[in-house]
């Protein structure tokens, strides 16, 4: 892989280790999102956990656990996100960091 070619987010996420948590650690009350004008979650998230297609969709599998979505959703958005870290040992695992 050469660095001159630009890297897509998908390619980047494929480089990160994840261990899926069976327990949902992010839950979004997506009805609230329909009235959310700014939708800051779409922009702050470095892993595109949140996407908009007619309504808010979210997929926690690539979540890097920064916790920033919770802050912007509650302070700028409509306050729809409940968030905690995945269970111990689950979720993202960086090999380098």
């Amino acid at each position, binding site marked *: *892989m*050469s*660095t*001159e070619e*630009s*890297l897509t*987010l998908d*390619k*980047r*996420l494929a*480089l*990160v280790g994840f*261990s899926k948590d069976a327990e949902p650690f992010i839950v979004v009350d997506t009805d609230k999102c329909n009235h959310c004008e*700014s939708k*800051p979650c*779409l*922009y*702050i*998230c*470095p*892993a*595109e956990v949140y996407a908009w297609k007619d309504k808010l969709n979210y997929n926690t599998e690539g979540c*890097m*656990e*920064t*916790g*920033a979505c*919770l*802050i*912007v959703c*509650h*302070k*700028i958005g409509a306050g729809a996100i409940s968030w*905690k*870290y*995945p*269970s*111990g*040992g689950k*979720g*993202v*695992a*960086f*090999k*380098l*960091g």
Partner: protein
Amino acid sequence: MSLEGFEVAVVGAGPAGSAAAITLAREGVQVLLVERGTFPGSKNVFGGRIYSYALKKLLGDSWKDAPVERFVRKEGITFMTSDNAFSVEFESKDAEGSFTAKRAKFDKWLAEEAEKAGASLITESRVDDLIMDGSRVRGIVAGQDKIPTDAVIACDGTTTGLARRAGLTSMLEPNQISMGVKDVIELPSEKIEERLGLEPGQGAAHVFIGACSGGLRGGGFLYTNQDSLALGMVVGGDDVSSHKTQSYSFMEKLRQHPKVQRFIKGGKTVEYDAHMIPEAGPKMLSRPYTDGMLVAGDAAGHLLNNGYTFRGVDMAIQAGVAAAQTVLEARKKKDYSANSLKTFERKLHEDPALKDMYTFHRVPAYLRNRRLYTVYPELVCSAAEAVYRVDGTGKIKISKQLRLQAKGRVSIFTIIRDLIGGARTF
């Protein structure tokens, strides 16, 4: 492992937590260090560089066992427009003042030092709650386990879970956080040394200001590991949200710049990392202690990022040690009330390293000035371009050139105001 009989629970095996655990365990305190990751460091991300003094103080000679990538001997700063760059470099004489590292190795090593000192480490364990007795913290809750202790030291990092639970802060504001993203790019060590102008084994730290953040509060960084470059961007949480630009898109903006391309060309990206940064300083918490609990490190805003030096790990270590010392005093008095633990705050203010956080408390506000990321980098680059270009059309003096370039971009009064502001802040 039996979870009974621990005097102190330290939550989070990052630098703050491990430093606190080392300090306590050495004095014979029964200390439990709890980490949610599969190993300490597996959840942690930074730029790159650790200032050595804090480790030397904590570990004496054994700090030399730290998993150092390269000692930083070259500091660089680049002001960039989309296709131009003006760089300044400084060569440090201090051979061991700071070093680059990988957190997955460094945090693991430091937690092992805590175990060697006698602390008990449990991993893959998420602390979900505090045992509360009115306003007094009496231990931690991790899954099914309720672990009673005399005191808790919360070193759980930037999402401040336990400090919020104890009522020491509410949720942070978007302008009090930044998002950091980073690519680790493998490159042979000779190439790294050749491209950054380094002697074998020496390292460099470089920051980028200007076009890479698209005018938003933020900037880029580059650190040299032994066989890889850590290249990343930090952008303001408020700016990213209101500008409707995805945080990770800045990574590409930085990578595609010609100056950066020359560093990373031919390299292979091997990991992508992201992490949040608390930028509000220690005033982020109403106070860093309550009955039965202290908060240290990122969780308490013990971090100083002034654009050219980024000090999180050294501050976290110092603060972790100060928290542990406070607990040791409280243990002698057998009094873990807030009134007894409040000496922590005095220790933070008096610590020669940590007091920088208070001296430079205006930095975060100053760095919110957008001109720092737009007008000034452009001005520097275009003035340099004009100064160095000889095309036979006649030259004017540098001072006049600067004024000419500023015209239409920014008024002289604004520049002076920003300069005075900068001089008062830094």
